[in-house]
């Protein structure tokens, strides 16, 4: 592989052309990545031109170069946000010391675990979504899907760069394993449960990008605070791309809502399903399901791992510097409302052990803002239905409420009642089958499937009626 022009082939700002060790690692990994992409990336469409955005530098504007690209030719690059001079560790026991430019031996294993866990979600979501293009509701949506997919691929690159550049042989092995695990494979599942669930339809996709990718945003934000500078810089840059994925999800759900409102009004009985659309109550159930599922991704409310990560300066809080005054967090506590022996009781937990929950609190606030925007759209559509988020206790599989039963308002219910009323709250197999039955592809330029409204505007200043994928 001698004589490769690395700068051209792999856009980067990490001096790849002069880093022989990294070159050697990537030379081995890159073909494997391409093979993985062909095997596990979008099923079909790999030879079609897609109007994609590519990051070629971290300069303003450099991260968003638009043009037609065949996905396998996408230039997956390695970018870290610019280095902050004399950056100090901003929290935890090492606060005030210079940020680590190399992996501190003491934290090597947990740091590697944090990175691998984050990295594993990136290829996982590509795998989960690989069949979706076959039922794309429009070319614009198909393009958005592919944009999300290639960028998740780039995020994988970013994480693999960290593993290969900083974690030696072990890191290289972990990088290889990231391409070996498969979403939903019983033998080689992805690490986190939510990333082993299938993504069979576009409503799921929009909910997933709204809620699961938003978890990603908060995880990346917490890691952007890291005292390990390369991780911090990598995550900061990834956050700019993640924002796009969130907006694909949010606007996707919004367009489904808008269309649902229209069809509800059109139908003499106010039944959007009768008009071949997705009805608002079904949408609410998807929101309930995915929001509660994604709350689990933050980990247990009370966690000694989270305390360790904070204490050691590896993972901070959301906007650690802006939102918090005390960055040591040994004083103070967080109050949890536990449900014990049939009654709610409050329990104080030291702040450090509540770090997962503090991140979840910020996440919920963000989700509330999204729901507000959705409801504004419903208001404008002149229907009375409003979307709401279930309480954090609802339908949890992990943490302090796992194994207990609450309705979406967070009121305790018996296991029997939960079982009886479950499908008032989360999608039943029937609901899923119905949504699935609507998933028919629309490949005509500018056209939308019946169950989704057209977006307000196109991509990169182009019209909605633009050939975003050349079919």
């Amino acid at each position, binding site marked *: 592989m001698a004589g490769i022009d690395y700068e051209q082939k792999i856009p980067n700002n990490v001096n790849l052309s002069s880093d022989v060790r990294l070159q050697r690692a990537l030379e081995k990994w890159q073909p494997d990545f391409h093979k993985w992409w062909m095997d596990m990336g979008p099923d079909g469409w790999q030879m079609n031109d897609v109007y994609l955005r590519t990051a070629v530098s971290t300069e303003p504007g450099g991260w968003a170069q638009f043009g037609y690209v065949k996905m396998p030719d996408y230039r997956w690059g390695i970018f870290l946000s610019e280095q902050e001079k004399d950056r100090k560790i901003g929290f935890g*026991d090492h606060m005030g010391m210079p940020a680590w430019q190399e992996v501190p031996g003491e934290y090597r*294993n947990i740091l590697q675990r944090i990175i691998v866990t984050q990295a594993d979600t990136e290829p996982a979501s590509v795998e989960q979504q690989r069949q979706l293009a076959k039922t794309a509701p429009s070319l614009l949506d198909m393009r958005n899907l592919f944009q999300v997919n290639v960028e998740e691929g780039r995020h994988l690159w970013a994480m693999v760069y960290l593993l290969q550049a900083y974690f030696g042989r072990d890191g290289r092995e972990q990088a290889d394993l990231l391409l*070996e695990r498969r979403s939903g494979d*019983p033998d080689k*599942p992805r690490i986190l449960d939510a990333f082993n669930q299938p993504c069979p339809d576009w409503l799921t996709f929009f909910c997933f990008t709204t809620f699961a990718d938003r978890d990603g945003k908060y995880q990346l934000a917490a890691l952007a605070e890291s005292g390990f500078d390369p991780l911090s810089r990598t995550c900061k840059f990834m956050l700019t791309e993640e924002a796009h994925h969130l907006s694909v999800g949010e606007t996707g759900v919004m367009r489904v809502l808008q269309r649902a409102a229209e069809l509800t009004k059109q139908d003499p009985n106010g039944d959007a399903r009768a008009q071949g659309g997705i009805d608002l109550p079904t949408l609410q159930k998807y929101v309930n399901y995915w929001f509660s599922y994604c709350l689990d991704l933050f980990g247990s409310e009370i966690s000694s791992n989270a*305390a360790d990560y904070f204490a050691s300066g590896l993972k901070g809080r959301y906007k650690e510097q802006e939102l918090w005054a005390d960055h040591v967090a*040994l004083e103070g506590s967080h109050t949890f409302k536990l449900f014990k022996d049939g009654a709610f009781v409050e329990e104080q937990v*030291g702040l450090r*052990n509540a770090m997962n929950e503090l991140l979840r609190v910020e996440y919920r606030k963000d989700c509330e803002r999204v729901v507000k925007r959705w409801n504004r759209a419903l208001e404008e559509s002149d229907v009375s239905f409003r979307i709401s988020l279930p309480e954090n206790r609802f339908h949890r599989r992990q943490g302090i409420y796992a194994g207990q039963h609450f309705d979406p308002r967070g009121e305790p219910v018996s296991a029997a009642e939960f079982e009886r009323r479950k499908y008032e709250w989360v999608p039943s197999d029937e609901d899923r089958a119905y949504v699935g039955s609507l998933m028919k592809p629309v490949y005509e330029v500018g056209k939308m499937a019946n169950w989704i409204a057209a977006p307000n505007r196109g991509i990169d200043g182009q019209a909605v009626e633009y050939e975003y994928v050349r079919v």
Partner: protein
Amino acid sequence: MGTVQRETPIASFESHPSRYRHWKLSFDGAVATLAMNIQEENGLRPDDYLLKLNSYDMGVDMELFDVVTRLRLEHPEVRAVAVTSTIPRIFCAGANILMLASSTHGFKVNFCKFTNETRLEIEDSSRHSGLTWVAALNGTASGGGYEMALACDEIWLIDDGNSAVSLPEVPLLGVLPGTGGLTRLVDKRKVRRDIADVFCTKAEGFRAREAVKSRLVDGSFPRSKWDAGMADVMKRAAAKNPARATQGVPVPALTVERSADGTEHRYPFVTLKVDREARVAHLTVKAPTTPAPADAAALRAEGCNTWSVQAFREFDDALCHLRFNLDTIGVILLHAEGDAANVLAHDAVVLGNKGDWFADEVRFLQSRVLRRLDNTARSTFAVADEGSCFAGTLFEMALACDRIYMLDSKGVQIHVGEASAGAFPMTHGPTRLAVRYAAEPSKVGEVLSIKQAIPASQAMDLELVTFAPDDIDWDDEIRIAVEERASLSPDALTGMEQNLRFVGTENCDLKIFGRLTAWQNWIFQRPNAVGDNGALTLYGHPERPKFDFRRT
């Protein structure tokens, strides 16, 4: 900070399958499946800790002890045991850390010793009862979870990209994998010592591929092939050894009467009577009062009610009570009462029927109880006086003691029997008689050839007893010896006794007690583990440990 450390009194060391809370034991022909199913809210101190992730406490281990006992006695048809978990992705996370951190030093040490003894019993049942133990790790086995697996003959780990085996004690808790982990890694499984060094400092451990390569496990299957693969493994494991028998003997509950103040425990054959003020316990074993069973079949018919089983089980139970619930008692005076001939007759039917599965199991059980006595950290004096009957297995108990006092008086005799000829090796291999005559090995045979009772003067000549005062001095000698002993530093005595008892070379089992446990108990006392800033103290707390980095 200062975590409150609590005592954990244990009302009973017995269990029964109908009462298991934490294990599911099922049988399919020659294969038994023992699944960890730990109920997190059913720990011994549920207000202090939850047994999350299949982590265990003493309650869990007492049930395991019961399982092993019953597999040996009640299920001779079983040839292989699969140890697994009912919780997806988790085999076992080892001893519960909050439980350890909130326990007194004495409880921690006793808990670890008991768990070690149970793991050794698993290996003993493999060695002697032909049970093949297979750890079927269907999820992560960390710390004591992997140590449990190490006690098995084979270890299989699911290859799901996630599940790992690990010994994270050093990097996470600042203590040792003290349930045989370090020892079995290198001595039993022959993991290369440098690889073991890497493994023991890597908290997250090794997953299947690496674990197989390093000999940490014997093999692996991916999730989709796990059930079928393990079924084959178990079939092969069961075919290794013939079944011992088709019909077992039931293990009944022990009967014990306790005085209201807790100072007296009366079992049918054993009495434990403590004098808290003097810090002395009198532990008395009664000889059988009924004739010995005529042959192996008759022995089997008596089952666990035969003296050789019942008296030893009672003795075992009393030792556990002493260890856990009577921690201020420093000296145990061992007495034996009754007819020596009856003891020898009962011994004869057990020892004379080697090869009969039940007679063998009785011997192994007695052997285990004797080892528990060797390993009990109290000063033990056997007291042979009027009406005593230190004969055969009971003389073997006396040999396990730190000293033997024998009244020099007509009619007071001891009787060395077949029991001292090799049926009951110590933890590290040699017999107690060989240990006694380390300087003159030829004396072992000489003493064994004496078939009749031995009076005090001859016992002194043969160096079988420590002191033989006459009746004028006797009471005072005993009183002074006990008072003196009870006044010495209990820590120094524990260390001294453990060093003097195990004469000869070390083996893997002895290393677990003599090296691993001893170091662990030192570490358990050190500020780096249990001080306010110690790793064990701070585990689960927001602060990180601060070590005193000076090394010796």
